[in-house]
């Protein structure tokens, strides 16, 4: 089974090295998609023996993930895992995340941080994510226990059915819509998300959730 791990990265050179060191132990192919960084992200990816794709200029995380997925599919991937470059995801969760997909039980495995007792989700973020869950249920009809969790695994069939048009963070909501629209089967898997002061500083701000909401709604209008 050919498994590709897609790691979108924007100015993550300093944190990426440790993440790629971890991923090297999985034995899977790693695709770093540099989203127009101005730091040494590309060099770090090359040094770690990964496929490195470079967006000429910044297009957003959704665009970078889709670039990695398209590339992996063309390289003959049987399964694709999305993995954040900031160190929040744990490679130790990957076998459990891949199992439902590689066994052929489902098309998509969605990481759920609330099923893992080791996730240290800040209280405010917990509230926002719960609201996001309700929003996801209302808009896509998917009753998921977590939302906007970037740790996901797709079978080849699942990945081929996904075509993200939302270039920025609203892709995370768009994925649910497409899972539903394509009739893909899915399963939620416990994953641990570790928040640190650094990841919270660079990661999604709570105030961004309103912006993401508008991106999503505007994107729906434009479809």
């Amino acid at each position, binding site marked *: 089974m050919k498994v590709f791990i897609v790691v979108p990265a924007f100015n993550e050179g300093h944190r990426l*090295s440790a993440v790629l*060191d971890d991923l*090297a132990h999985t034995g899977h*192919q790693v695709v770093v*998609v540099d989203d127009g960084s101005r730091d040494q992200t*590309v060099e770090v*990816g*090359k*040094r*770690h*023996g*990964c*496929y*490195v*794709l*470079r*967006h*000429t*200029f910044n*297009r957003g995380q959704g*665009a970078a993930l*889709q*670039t990695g997925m*398209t*590339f992996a599919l*063309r390289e003959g991937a049987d399964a694709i895992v999305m993995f954040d470059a900031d160190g929040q995801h744990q490679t130790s969760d990957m076998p459990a995340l891949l199992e439902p997909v590689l066994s052929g039980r489902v098309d998509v495995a969605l990481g759920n941080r609330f099923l893992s007792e080791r996730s240290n989700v800040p209280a405010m973020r917990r509230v926002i994510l719960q609201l996001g869950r309700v929003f996801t249920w209302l808009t896509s009809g998917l009753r998921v226990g977590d939302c906007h969790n970037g740790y996901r695994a797709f079978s080849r069939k699942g990945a081929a059915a996904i075509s993200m*048009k939302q*270039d920025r963070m609203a892709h995370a909501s768009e994925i649910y819509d497409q899972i539903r629209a394509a009739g893909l089967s899915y399963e939620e898997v416990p994953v641990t998300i570790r928040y640190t002061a650094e990841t919270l500083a660079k990661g999604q701000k709570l105030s961004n959730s309103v912006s993401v909401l508008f991106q999503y709604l*505007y*994107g729906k*209008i*434009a479809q």
Partner: protein
Amino acid sequence: MNIFQIVFITFCALQAALSLRRFAKTRHLTAVVFLGAWIAAIVLIANPQMSTQIANSVGIGRGVDFITYFLLITFLWGHYQHYLRYKRVENEVTHLVRELAIAQASRPVARVDTATV
């Protein structure tokens, strides 16, 4: 005819001529729409009471209200059309950036021990 009407009618007439010159040969429908809009503006400026008559005929009291509603709807429609075009261009740019990234993908070579770099 007062000074306001002279200035604005001249301006609208010039714009109508420019629209005609710009679009007449290539985009006929656009030429007709722009020409129609400028001529309507000229007629309304030359006959200020006409907007009130139109307003009354559709159940709106004042001519200025009718024009405000009309402009608001036109603006929103134009904004929406521009947004659709913007999204289309954004998607095309992303598609190009993606294909370029894939075409120039750097393939894995033997891993370099980070401790020695």
